[in-house]
Each structure stands twice: as C-alpha cells, then as structure tokens.
C-alpha cells in the first residue's frame, strides 16, 4: 500500500471556553490515499468540521490540538503560520459550504484565482496566469470562462460560485482537497452538477478528497470509504458498500434508518371529509418590485386547495415561489391577483376583524427555530403568548394549557421556565410547533420545518407532526425541497417551478411515476443513500 497523502493519528481537539476545556474531538485516526474520496459523516457536534479545519490550521485561537496530522509525511500539529502557509492551497486546499460568501465580494473572480497563482505558481508570467485561470474555469465547466474572469461573485449563482471555489482550490494541483459540506447550501439539481464536476475532476487530477457531509446520499454518490463520527469520536470506518449494506456500529444503523427514502414507507392516504376545503387558493399571482422598479412575478397563477386532515406538500427549488405562497396565505406577500380563501373567508376581501379572526386559526412553523423564538423569553412565555393575546388566558389556566402543549410535543412540562438557548435545535423546533398549535389551528403552514435539523432529529420531528395532525386534524401546507421528507409525511404533492405548478397529484403517483420532466429531474437529482443505486444512475460500475 502506498503512503497516505494525509494521515491523522490520535487527534484530539479541545476548546477553552470561559476558562473551561471543552473537548470537541477525541482519538481520531484515519488515512487518506491519493485518488481516494474519504467521507467523514456525522451530525452537528460530531467534530467532523473541526477535524477538517485542524488539517489546515484554521481553528480559532482558543483551540488546542494534540496528536499528529501528517500531510505528505510532515506533522502539522503545532506548526507555525509560516509552515502552514507552505501547505495551504499548495498541498491541501479547501472548499466550503456557502459559496456565495466564501469569495471576496469586492474583487473579480479572475483576480481571486490569479492572486492564488501569483502566491503559489512560481515563475509564471501574467499571461500564463491568466491562461491558467481560464483553463481552470473551463475545467469546472463554467460557460464562457474568459468573460467569467471579469465577473464579481454577486453576479454568479450559488452553483457557479462553488465551481469557482473548486477551480481556485485546484489551481495549484493540491494533493488533498477538503470539501466541507460542498453542496449543502445548493439546490438539488445544482448539487447534482457540482458532485458530477467533483467526480470528474477527481478522476482527472488524482487528488484525494476529504468530504465532510451530513448527507448520506452525497456519501453514497461520491465516497470510496467512510468515517462515521459522533460526539467527537469515530464510530466506524469502512468502505462505502459496507457502511450501507452491513454497518457495524449501532449508531451507523440508527443514522441510516433515520434517512427518509422515497417509496419505502407504505402507508394509507388519510380519509378526507367531503366538506369545503380549509384553504383554497385560486389564480394566485404575487409580484415583487425589484430595485429598478420592475415587477418580478414570484408566483404566477397558482391554484390549490387543502382539506381538513390533509397534508399538501409544496416542493420546488429556490426561487420556485413555494415560500411566497405560504407567505401569501399569511398576508405577508404582495398579492397582485387571485383569491386566498381560508374556511370560506376571502382574506383579501374580508374586513379587518374578520380576517383577524381567521388568521388566529392559522399556525406557522418556520425553518430556523432559533430565529423564530424570542431569546429573552422562556419557552413557556413563547408558547403562552397566543393564548394570552387571543384567548385572554391568565394564571393557572394559562400554565395548565402550556404544560399540556409541552407534553403534546413530547417535552417535559417542567421545562416551561427554560430559555431557548438551553434547548437543542430539535427541542426548539418542538417549542415552535407547540406555539403553532396552541390555538387549535385549522391550517398549519410549515415552511421547511426540518431543514435546519440533523437527520435523526428530523425523523422525530416528522413523527411528531404526523401525530399532531392526526390529533388536531388541521389542514397542513408543508413547504419543502426534500422529496423524501415529503414522501414520508404528505398526502398530495404540488411541484412548483419558476412560480408555476408543473405537476400535482397524489403523493405516490407523483413521486414514483412523475409525468412532468422537471419532476423527473428533481427525483433523479436527489442522491439516495445507496452506493449501487447511485452508480447505476451514473451508468458506471462501482470501483473496488
């Protein structure tokens, strides 16, 4: 066996926070060989990102690193800035999660690639550097690479910015490329393209890739070997097939079980009452004005309805208008045309008091529970607020209802005096859900409620939503980009593309036998946690 290009031995990382040492990573060992893709998988707090940052010495000053990190045989633990400077970008380079913020906004793309070549590429003339920059952009399959050199980051889409990041990372032919959640901030079809680019480049340059991700589908798509981490420790290291077909660690099995997959859960569709739908949207048009005063249609003629006890999924990529439809129902978007009718009341025509009475019965859950809860109020106060304001409840009656709601979302009722920062992300989202159902809603709007959560937490929150819906029988508008989540939860699916509906129908029909091309593309783009299936989709055999 060849010597690994990156070798980590007995790595431990502590952070000193307020005089205390908080361990983040402990006893981590792994090797990365040339031409290999090694994935480090784990949920938040597993130490996967911290480990990758340690390789390049990018940890903050309060971090203490012990053990050994051998880059090409040289230990970099405790190395000086000067030693790191010889490694960064030259032997090991890195791409990050959020490509739009990873590039300096005030310099052109060309400047940022060329400054890297100036730094590392000895003896290159100005013209050679420029030619190399164009070649790099061509390598990452960016159209019109010569023109793109003059572009500023804000003129690029997220996917294009990530291509530029990859081009820059590969500029000096590094031996190792660290990709920290490289596609997490991107739409699923864009993710597909970026993964393709990474795979093709890897085959061409023979660079080793250290892939940091939480997404088992991405692992199945790209990785050769997998390190599973939890709470700063390695749970299991194995080749990608074994991880998915014969996981040894208990945790790996639990992690895989929590990943939603399309077409696995067989469940009946909710029996629906024949009464009038709770939400009727007809011919909805939403227009925003952009900075030049032109009208931009975010939603263009959308009609849909949801009955009591039904869960309707709105799926689409960013810019499809799915969140805007949710906002229109809440009266938070500039509706230009169309009707939004909730329990028979047209919200655009109704009197103010009538509309308020109806809106009281609409609950909302947003993507980020941390931002949705007031950090200075206890969770009991947050949950109790709608009860106080709308029902005028006070004292023990209020406290009783709040603890009932906390129990309904499976949190101890004694927690009502805790503050949001004392809770985990999943627990906070439960609080947000408790608040949303406090007034016994007829309609619940859930906008990406599990997208910010770890996969194992996501599974429990989805369970909770399903259970609450059976209990309260509200109509639910479930907005999501994740088709597998939708499959696990919803009854009907509406697929949106550029503000319009491209396909609508019963969940199983849409997700297993899509009629529209765009739906098929969406389904094909989402990587599934199965290496064989991913290899089949690519039409190539799995190596090894």
């Amino acid at each position, binding site marked *: 066996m060849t010597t690994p290009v990156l070798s980590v031995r007995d790595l431990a990382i502590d952070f000193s926070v307020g005089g205390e040492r908080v361990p983040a990573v402990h006893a981590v060992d792994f090797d990365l060989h040339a031409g290999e893709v090694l994935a480090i998988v784990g949920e938040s707090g597993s130490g996967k990102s911290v480990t990758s940052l340690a390789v*390049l010495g*990018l940890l903050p000053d309060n971090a203490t690193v012990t053990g050994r990190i051998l880059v090409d045989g040289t230990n970099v633990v405790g190395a000086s*800035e000067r030693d*790191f*400077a*010889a*490694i*960064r*970008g*030259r032997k090991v*380079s*890195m791409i*990050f999660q*959020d490509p739009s*913020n*990873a*590039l*300096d*906004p*005030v*310099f*052109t793309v060309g400047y940022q690639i060329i*400054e*890297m070549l100036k*730094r*590392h590429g000895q003896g290159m003339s100005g013209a050679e550097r420029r030619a190399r920059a164009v070649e790099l952009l061509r390598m990452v399959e960016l159209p019109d690479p010569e023109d793109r050199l003059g572009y*500023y980051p*804000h*003129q690029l889409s997220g996917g294009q910015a990530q291509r530029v*990041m990859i081009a*820059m990372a590969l500029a000096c032919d590094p031996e190792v490329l660290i990709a920290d959640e490289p596609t997490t901030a991107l739409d699923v079809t864009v993710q597909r393209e970026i993964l393709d680019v990474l795979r093709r480049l890897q085959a061409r340059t023979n660079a080793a890739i250290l892939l940091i991700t939480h997404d088992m589908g991405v692992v199945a798509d790209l990785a050769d070997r997998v390190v599973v981490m939890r709470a700063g420790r390695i749970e299991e290291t194995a080749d990608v097939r074994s991880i998915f077909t014969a996981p040894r660690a208990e945790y790996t099995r639990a992690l895989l079980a929590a990943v939603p997959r399309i077409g696995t859960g067989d469940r009946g569709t909710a029996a629906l009452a024949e009464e009038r739908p709770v939400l009727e949207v007809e011919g909805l048009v939403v227009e925003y004005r952009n*900075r030049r005063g032109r009208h931009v249609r975010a939603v263009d003629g959308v009609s849909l309805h949801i009955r009591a006890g039904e869960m309707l999924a709105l799926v689409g990529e960013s810019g499809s208008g799915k969140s805007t439809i949710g906002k229109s129902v809440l009266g938070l978007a500039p509706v230009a045309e169309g009707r939004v009718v909730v329990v028979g009341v047209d919200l655009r025509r109704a009197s103010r008091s009538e509309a308020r009475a109806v809106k009281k019965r609409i609950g909302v859950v947003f993507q980020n529970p941390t931002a949705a809860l007031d950090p200075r109020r206890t969770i009991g106060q947050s949950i109790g607020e709608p009860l106080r304001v709308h029902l005028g409840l006070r004292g023990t009656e209020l406290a009783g209802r709040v603890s009932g709601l906390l129990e309904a979302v499976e949190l101890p009722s004694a927690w009502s005096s805790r503050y949001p920062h004392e809770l985990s992300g999943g627990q906070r989202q439960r609080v947000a859900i408790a608040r949303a159902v406090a007034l016994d809603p007829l309609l619940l709007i859930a906008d990406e409620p599990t997208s910010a959560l770890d996969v194992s937490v996501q599974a429990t929150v989805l369970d909770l939503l399903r259970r609450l819906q059976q209990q309260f029988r509200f109509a639910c508008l479930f907005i999501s980009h994740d088709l597998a989540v939708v499959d696990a939860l919803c009854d009907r699916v509406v697929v949106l593309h550029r503000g319009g509906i491209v396909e609508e129908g019963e969940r199983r029909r849409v997700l297993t036998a899509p009629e529209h091309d765009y739906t098929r593309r969406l389904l094909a783009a989402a990587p599934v946690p199965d290496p064989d299936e991913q290899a089949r989709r690519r039409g190539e055999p799995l190596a090894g």
Partner: protein
Amino acid sequence: MIRFVGRRVVELAIVFVGVTFIIYVMVFTLPGDPIAALGGDRPLPEAVQAQLRAQYHLDEPVWLQYLRYVGGLFTGDLGTGFDGRPVGDRMAARWPVTITLALTAWAIEVVVGVVLGLISGLRSGGLVDRTVLVGTVLATSIPVFVLGVTAQLVFGLQLGWFPIAGTSEGWPTAYLLPAIVIALFGLASVTRLMRGSVVDTLRSDFVRTLTAKGMPRRNIVGVHVMRNSVAPVLTFLAIDLGYLLGGTVVIEAIFNLPGIGALLFDAIKTHEGPTVVGVATALILIFLATSVVVDLINSVLDPRIRHE
C-alpha cells in the same frame, strides 16, 4: 456607470433647489426689519428705506426674490451685502482659513482614525483596543469649547508649543491645535466605525477562504480586509467633512480665526440675508459634492453598488 452618475446629479439638483429655497425663505421671514435696523437708534427716513428696499428687491414677493437669487448664482453673482460689498468677495476672503482648518482636521481623522481603528479591530480586546475605547468615550463626552479653551491654556499659554490665537504664523503651526480639537469628535467615530467594520470583515467566510488559499496575512489584511472595511467609514468621513467646514463657528471664535464660520455668525446677527444664504448655499454645495464623490468612490470599491 454613466446612468449611475446621471441619476446622482439629478438627485443633487433636486436637493440643492429644495434646501436653498428653505434657507432663503427662513432668513427673509425672520422677525425684525434689517433695513430699519441699519439706521441704529436714529430711524432712516421712509424714502431712504423704500429706496434701499427696492435696491435689494425686498419689496418683491419671496419666490421672485428667490428666482432672482438663483438666476444670479448661475452667473456667479452671490448677491450684495448691506455694506455694498459683493457676498462673493467677502466669502472668498474667508474660505482659505476655513478650508485649511477643516482639511487639516479631516486629514487627522482619516489617518489616525483609520489606523487606530484597524489596529483595534485586528487585535480586538488588546491593549490598544481598550485604550482607544476609553479615549473615544472621553473625546466624545467633552464639549468642544471646553476642549478648545483647555488646549489653548495648556499647549498655547503654559507650554507655548502653539500660538494661542490668530493665523499670523500660517500653516501648520497656527492651524494644528484648533484642527486637533475639532477633529477629536469625528476621530472617535471614525475609529469606532473602522474597528467594528474590521471585526465584522475578519469574521466573514471569505477571509477564511483566503487563509485556506495560503495568502499571507499581510495581503489578506492590507488588500481584502481594508477594501471591504473602509466603505462605511468613507461615508461617515464625507458627511464629517461637511460638518467640519460648517461647524467651525465655535472654534474660529475661540482661536480668533477669520474664517467662514465667523462670517456666518456675524451675518446672522445683522440679518444680512444674502450673506447667510450665500454661505449656507456654499456649504450645502460642498456637502452634496462630497457625498457624490463618496458614492462614486464607494461604487468603485464595491461592485455590488455599481451593479444595483
């Protein structure tokens, strides 16, 4: 880019007309009759007053007076003072003093503020940062006339480093002390702004990318952090230049400098409409011009503004 400049010029014209008109109306509707007051204790004969009113067009409606005034502006005529001298000449004699004072103060703000802000931002929580914090609080909490008189007493009288008053010794000795005194207030703001801006920029993702690229710290700070941090500071600096030019009334009085502030103060006391409007208009023009220049510089520094 041309459209951007064009739009700014149109905006500038609208603001100019609006503001000069308001000042004009305000000055000419002040209580008291400036013509009657010219005679002092001995009232002027009615016929002389009427003749003077006609000469200065004070018998016409305000809007017509204003149009006449603006018309004159375009031919370089700023009107005539009650002493018969053209306002333009009176201002021309005073401008050099004020401009020298303001620019000296401004240069101190730019150099010292940006440098101190950068250092405190790079080593936030360090000794320089904490000293600067205390210093800026002190500088902003002492009124400018207290500071002025104290500086005069200590550095002028007791230590004898600078002249106590007047412009006879010329630049820089005569201007340095008053410039430092008026610069202190703005200097504190510039430093705090720059510090905050640098701290924010250092936290951004692209700085991490640059480090991961292997760029030397010198380059990251000197090129990338500086250019990203300086834009908000620049906006403040431009506004502050206008403030320095117009706000020198107190300091010119303390240090007995014959500048535009002193002229404005006298003109307000004697209800000399044309002079007040002339000085105010000139200040507004400077203010507007600097804001356009700053917008242009900002749009060069930040492509996102350019492509808006």
